[in-house]
């Protein structure tokens, strides 16, 4: 295990176990043992390691453990915090993953005082190089291994009567290994950093109870490269948000962005975003919504509008039994997204079986991408503690199918 990884996990363990004895904290924890299997017929060769080397992964099933932990509480008066941590330790397999041993930690601090809101966040992902793939980046003609990501963000929101302001800044550092494969299979690798600063500002005004207008500015500075991957835009938009009555609500947004970047298609300089979401209730049991998102652009040179993507989602949920722990429901929907081959149909059912035991099953079919189904059986030992077993099978269109069985426990305390 890498030294940095060990330090990170140790730090987290210290935080978790010292906080366990403090009062006023809410903790959510989920730990699961997972077993991965595939119907792949051939072993695969991947490159991993501190000193890059080729490794052959066989098709036998593999095991692992996934631990998720979240602690939140009050630090001082208006200051609250949340610590989130995801740790995955598993054997290398055919699974669709970049790293099989990583720790993802997020530390968030919030300050809320009437109309003022401030959030400070530090996030870190540390991957153990021994279990992290070198990924082939076709356009760049090389392989990279993401080893550590730091992300520090600050977000301020303030309301001043009808006027609102939102300011956001984010500094990201990616520590990666860069690999050139020589013909005689001697791997040459070098460490590199990718640093980016993102900033965003939005000023908005409530024109009425339902209507809001806003202007925004976004700027990304790629600190490594000259100006090639810099990006900025100015936006102006109008939003309508109204709950007409208990049964009907509509939220729509139209925004125009003036983009300024070199690395993206010139046609997208004038960019239009249209979003609409209509929510409908039919009594207490049946609810549904329709979401439509369109992205289009106008190219000055060709004097022509272009369609970037359309996404229409229709979703309905029928709740037929209301229980303390989990409602029993049937949920179904379709997503229409032809430009990204993202058309899909999905359904899910949650059913109370007996004695605090629930069964959830679902399926999804995306004709261009994959089909997947899962079954989960959960037993609530107490309302805040449960044990469960979950089986998820996914058949991808362009790669072997995979099956993941997880046996886990969820605890809230």
């Amino acid at each position, binding site marked *: 295990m890498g030294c940095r990884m060990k330090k990170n996990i140790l730090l987290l363990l210290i935080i978790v176990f010292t906080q366990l004895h403090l009062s006023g904290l809410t903790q959510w924890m989920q730990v699961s043992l997972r077993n991965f299997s595939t119907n792949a017929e051939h072993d695969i060769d991947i490159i991993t390691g501190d000193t890059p080397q080729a490794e052959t992964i066989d098709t036998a099933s593999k095991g692992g453990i996934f631990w998720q932990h979240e602690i939140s509480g009050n630090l001082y008066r208006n200051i609250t915090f949340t610590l989130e941590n995801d740790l995955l330790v598993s054997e290398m397999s055919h699974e669709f993953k970049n790293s099989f041993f990583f720790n993802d930690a997020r530390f968030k601090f919030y300050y809320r005082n009437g109309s003022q809101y401030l959030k400070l966040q530090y996030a870190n992902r540390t991957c153990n190089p021994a279990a992290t793939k070198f990924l082939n980046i076709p356009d760049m003609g090389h392989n990279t291994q993401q080893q550590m990501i730091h992300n520090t963000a600050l977000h301020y929101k303030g309301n001043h009567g009808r006027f609102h302001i939102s300011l956001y800044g984010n500094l*990201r550092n990616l520590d990666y290994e860069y690999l050139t494969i020589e013909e005689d299979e001697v791997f040459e690798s070098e460490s590199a950093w990718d640093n*980016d600063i993102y900033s965003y500002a939005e000023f908005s005004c409530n024109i009425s109870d339902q209507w809001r207008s806003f202007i925004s500015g976004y700027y990304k500075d790629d600190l490594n490269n000259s100006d090639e991957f810099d990006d900025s835009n100015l936006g102006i938009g109008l939003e309508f948000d109204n709950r007409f009555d208990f049964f009907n609500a509509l939220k729509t947004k139209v925004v125009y962005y003036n983009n300024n970047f070199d690395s993206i298609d010139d046609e*997208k300089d004038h960019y239009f975003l249209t979003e609409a979401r*209509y929510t409908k209730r039919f009594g207490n049991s049946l609810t549904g919504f329709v979401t439509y998102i369109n992205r289009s652009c106008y190219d000055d040179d060709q004097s022509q509008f272009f369609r*970037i993507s359309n996404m229409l989602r229709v979703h309905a949920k029928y709740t037929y039994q209301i229980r303390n722990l989990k409602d029993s429901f049937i949920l179904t929907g379709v997503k229409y997204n032809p430009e990204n081959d993202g058309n899909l149909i999905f359904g899910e059912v949650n059913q109370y079986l007996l004695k605090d035991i629930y069964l959830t099953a679902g399926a999804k079919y995306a004709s261009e991408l994959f089909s997947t189904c899962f079954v989960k059986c959960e037993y609530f030992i107490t309302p805040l503690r449960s044990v469960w077993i979950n089986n998820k099978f996914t058949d*991808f269109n362009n790669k072997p199918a995979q099956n993941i069985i997880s046996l886990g426990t969820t605890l809230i305390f």
Partner: protein
Amino acid sequence: MKRRLIYLILLGILLYFGCEKLSNPEYNIDTSACNSCGECIQICPMDAIEFGPDGKAVIDQTKCNQCGKCITICPKDAIH
């Protein structure tokens, strides 16, 4: 409200049929569907995805190479 909905549907039809499709796809996140699970962030080979101000995933289009891995992994089908 019905009239507003009809306008919206007409606008959608106009935007859909009225213009030619751009050759390169572009992936974005439907923030109303995203549950902030972070799976897309962990799979992206270009480190192009991070959480934005509202805690929902955002794609940096200058980094994205349109590999489509994120759309396949998202449990909420929020990527389009």
